[in-house]
C-alpha cells in the first residue's frame, strides 16, 4: 500500500465527483452508514490500488480528502 | 501663523491634510471639484494618496477598503453623488469603519441645479444608522470641522459627514490653521486594521457584516449605547441672545449668516429682540438649546435655503409646542435673502406680540 486516503466523512455531501474522477474506480458511497447530514459518505474500497493521482482530492468541493504517501515497504 | 485667504472647499481639504488624512478618493462634481483638485496637488507633497475614482460609489468603496486598512480617509461630493455613496456609508457605519465625507450641498432632487441649497438635511442610507453631521457657517468653521472630524470618526468608529451648503464651499474666507480644535488624545488603537495575519501573530481580522443575532446585538449597541454617547459629547450649537428674545431664529450654514445680518439690522432699528439658535451639528441636533430660550419668546422662525423647510421638523420637536414654529425660505422665489428673513420675523412679530 503506497497511499492512504482519509475522509472527513461528516463533511461529505454525497456529490459523487470524486467517485466519477477516480481513474481506477476505487471510491464508492458507503451505504452501511449515514453521516450527520443523512448522506452515505464516500469511502475507499481498495486502498492498495490507489495510485495517488489526487484526482479525487482536487475535485472534492468540500475538501474532505487527505492523501498520505506511505514509506516504501514490502 | 497668519491667517490665509482660502476657498471653503480648499480649507476643508487643507484641514484634512493637517490632521493626517492618509488617502482621498473622489470624483468631480460641482460645487466641490476644488476639493479633489486640491488633494491632487497637495497629497503627493506629503507622500499621501490622492486617487480619482471612476464613480462616486467607487470612491466611497475605496474609502471603505482603505479605512478597513487603518487609514484616515476622506471623500467629497454634492447631493447627487451623496445618493450614490449612501450604500457604502451605511455599510461603513454598520461595520464601524471611520471616514470623513464632505457634502457640498446644491439644489436637488437628482441632478438639480448648481445653486447652493440646504435640501439634503434628511439624507441617509438604509437601516437607520446615524453619523455626526457638521454644518459649517464660515470658512474657518469648515476647516475646524473637517479637522476634528477625523478624530471623532476614529473615536467612535463611525463616519462623520460635513454638510456644507454650496456657498460655504465656494466662498473665500480667512482661515487660521493654528486655531484648529485640539487633537484628541487617547484615541483607540486600530488593532482591527487589515494588514494580514502575520502582522498580529496569526490572528485574523474579518470585516464582515454581522449576521443573525449578532446583527441585532450590533445595531442594538449602536442605537442604545454608541449614539447616546455621541449625542452627549458631540452636540455643537451656537446660542445667541435667546434669554431676552421676542423671536428666535433657527438656521445653519449660510442661512445663519443671513440671520445674523437680520439680527444686527433689527437691533439697530429698535425692532423686536431677536435671538438665534444655530446648530453646528445637524445630528446630533441641539434640542436642549431650545430650553435656554427666555420667557419673552413668542415664536421660532426657521430660515432655510429650501422651499418648505426640512430642519424645521427638528425645531418643532425641540419646541415641543411651546412656541409656534414657522419657515422662511425659497418659497416665493429661487433664493432666500436676509430681507425675506427680516420680513418674516416682522410678520410673525405682528401676529404674536
Amino acid at each position, binding site marked *: 500500500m503506497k497511499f492512504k486516503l482519509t475522509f472527513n466523512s461528516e*463533511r461529505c455531501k454525497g456529490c459523487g465527483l470524486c467517485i466519477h474522477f477516480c481513474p481506477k474506480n476505487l471510491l464508492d458511497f458507503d451505504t452501511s452508514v449515514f453521516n450527520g447530514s443523512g448522506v452515505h459518505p464516500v469511502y475507499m474500497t481498495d486502498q492498495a490500488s490507489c495510485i495517488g493521482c489526487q484526482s479525487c482530492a482536487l475535485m472534492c*468541493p468540500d475538501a474532505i480528502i487527505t492523501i498520505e504517501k506511505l514509506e516504501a515497504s514490502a | 501663523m497668519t491667517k490665509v485667504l482660502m476657498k471653503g472647499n480648499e480649507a476643508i481639504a487643507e484641514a484634512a491634510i493637517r490632521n493626517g488624512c492618509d488617502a482621498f478618493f473622489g470624483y468631480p462634481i460641482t460645487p466641490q471639484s476644488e476639493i479633489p483638485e486640491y488633494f491632487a496637488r497637495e497629497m503627493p507633497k506629503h507622500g499621501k494618496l490622492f486617487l480619482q475614482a471612476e464613480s462616486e460609489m467607487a470612491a466611497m*468603496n*475605496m474609502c471603505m477598503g482603505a479605512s478597513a486598512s487603518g487609514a484616515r480617509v476622506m471623500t467629497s461630493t454634492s447631493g447627487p453623488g451623496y445618493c450614490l455613496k449612501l450604500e457604502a456609508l451605511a455599510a461603513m457605519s454598520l461595520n464601524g469603519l471611520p471616514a470623513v465625507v464632505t457634502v457640498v450641498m446644491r439644489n436637488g432632487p437628482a441632478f438639480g441645479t448648481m445653486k447652493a441649497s440646504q435640501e439634503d438635511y434628511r439624507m441617509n442610507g438604509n437601516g437607520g444608522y446615524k453619523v455626526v453631521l457638521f454644518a459649517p457657517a464660515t470658512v474657518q468653521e469648515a476647516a475646524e470641522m473637517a479637522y476634528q472630524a477625523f478624530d471623532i470618526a476614529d473615536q467612535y468608529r463611525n463616519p462623520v459627514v460635513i454638510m456644507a451648503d454650496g456657498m460655504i464651499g465656494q466662498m473665500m474666507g480667512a482661515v487660521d490653521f493654528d486655531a484648529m480644535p485640539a487633537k484628541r488624545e487617547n484615541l483607540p488603537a486600530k488593532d482591527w486594521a487589515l494588514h494580514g495575519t502575520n502582522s498580529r501573530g496569526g490572528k485574523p481580522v474579518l470585516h464582515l457584516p454581522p449576521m443573525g443575532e449578532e446583527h441585532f446585538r450590533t445595531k442594538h449597541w449602536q442605537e442604545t449605547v454608541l449614539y447616546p454617547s455621541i449625542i452627549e459629547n458631540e452636540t455643537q450649537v451656537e446660542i445667541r441672545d435667546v434669554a431676552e428674545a421676542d423671536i428666535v431664529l433657527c438656521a445653519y450654514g449660510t442661512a445663519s449668516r443671513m440671520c445674523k445680518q437680520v439680527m444686527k439690522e433689527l437691533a439697530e432699528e429698535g425692532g423686536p429682540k431677536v435671538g438665534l439658535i444655530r446648530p453646528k451639528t445637524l445630528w446630533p441636533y441641539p434640542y436642549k438649546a431650545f430650553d435656554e430660550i427666555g420667557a419673552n419668546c413668542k415664536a421660532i422662525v426657521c430660515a432655510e435655503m429650501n422651499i418648505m423647510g426640512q430642519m424645521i421638523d427638528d425645531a418643532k420637536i425641540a419646541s415641543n409646542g411651546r412656541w409656534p414654529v414657522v419657515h422662511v425660505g425659497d418659497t416665493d422665489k429661487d433664493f432666500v435673502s436676509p430681507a425675506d428673513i427680516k420680513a418674516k420675523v416682522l410678520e410673525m412679530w405682528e401676529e404674536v406680540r
Partner: protein
Amino acid sequence: MSILYERSKCFNDSPFTFCPGCTHGIILNAVMSVVDEMGMAGDTITVGCVGCGGYMPWFMDIDTIYSLHGRAPANATGVKRMNPDKLVFTYQGDGDLASIGTAEIVHAAHRAEKITAIFVNNTTYGMTGGQMAPTTLIGQKTTTSPYGREESHCGKPIRMSEMLSTIDGAKFIERCAANSPANVRKMKKAIRRAFECQLKGLGFSMVEILSTCPTNWGMSPLDALKRMEDEMMPYYPLGNFKDYED
C-alpha cells in the same frame, strides 16, 4: 509517511456551506492552496463579494473585508494602496463582477491596480435563486428568462476575459475551468501566475473560472459539469488572453 495532499491550511473548522457538488469549493480550495504554496497566508487580504462565493471569508482565518455588491475591486483598491506589499484578491461571481460591478472591474484594470480578481462564472445568479446573469447563454432558461434568453431582448452573454484583455493595465487574464483534475491543475498554475503578476507590481490580473450551479440548473453535479463542457466552453473558450514576460 508524508502528506501528499491535504486541503488548504487557510481554512478554519467551518464546513463549506456551498451546495453539494458546487465547484465553488473546488475553486476556493485551489486558490487557497496556491496561497499556501506561496507562503502568503499571513500576508493576504481577501475581498469578498455578494453571492454564494461571499461566504468564503467565514471559512478562513485570513484577513478579509466583505464588499457591497460589485464594489469588491474598489474595496480592494483601497486595501492594496494601503498595503502595497500584501497579496490582495477579490473573489467574485458573475453577477457581482459582470453586472453591477462592471465599472469597478474595468477601472481597476484600467488603473493597473495591483490586485487579482478571481472571477467565478456559472452563467447564473446562484445565491438569489437562479436568475439570469449577463453571462447567461442564449436559450438558457432561468427564473428571469423563463422562455430562454433571447438576443433580441437582452443581447448576447458578456465575455469578461476577452473584454478586459483589451485594457493596457490588465497584465494577466486567463480563463480556466473547474470541470476536471487536469483543468483544476491548470487553474492553479494560472492563479499562481496571476498572484505573481500582482506581487511583481506589474498590474491587474484576473483568472476567470467556469463553474457550475447544480441546484439552480436543476442538474446533478456531474451533469452540471457536462453542461459546462458542452455548452459553456464553446462560448467561453479556455485559455490565456493576456500574459506578461517573465
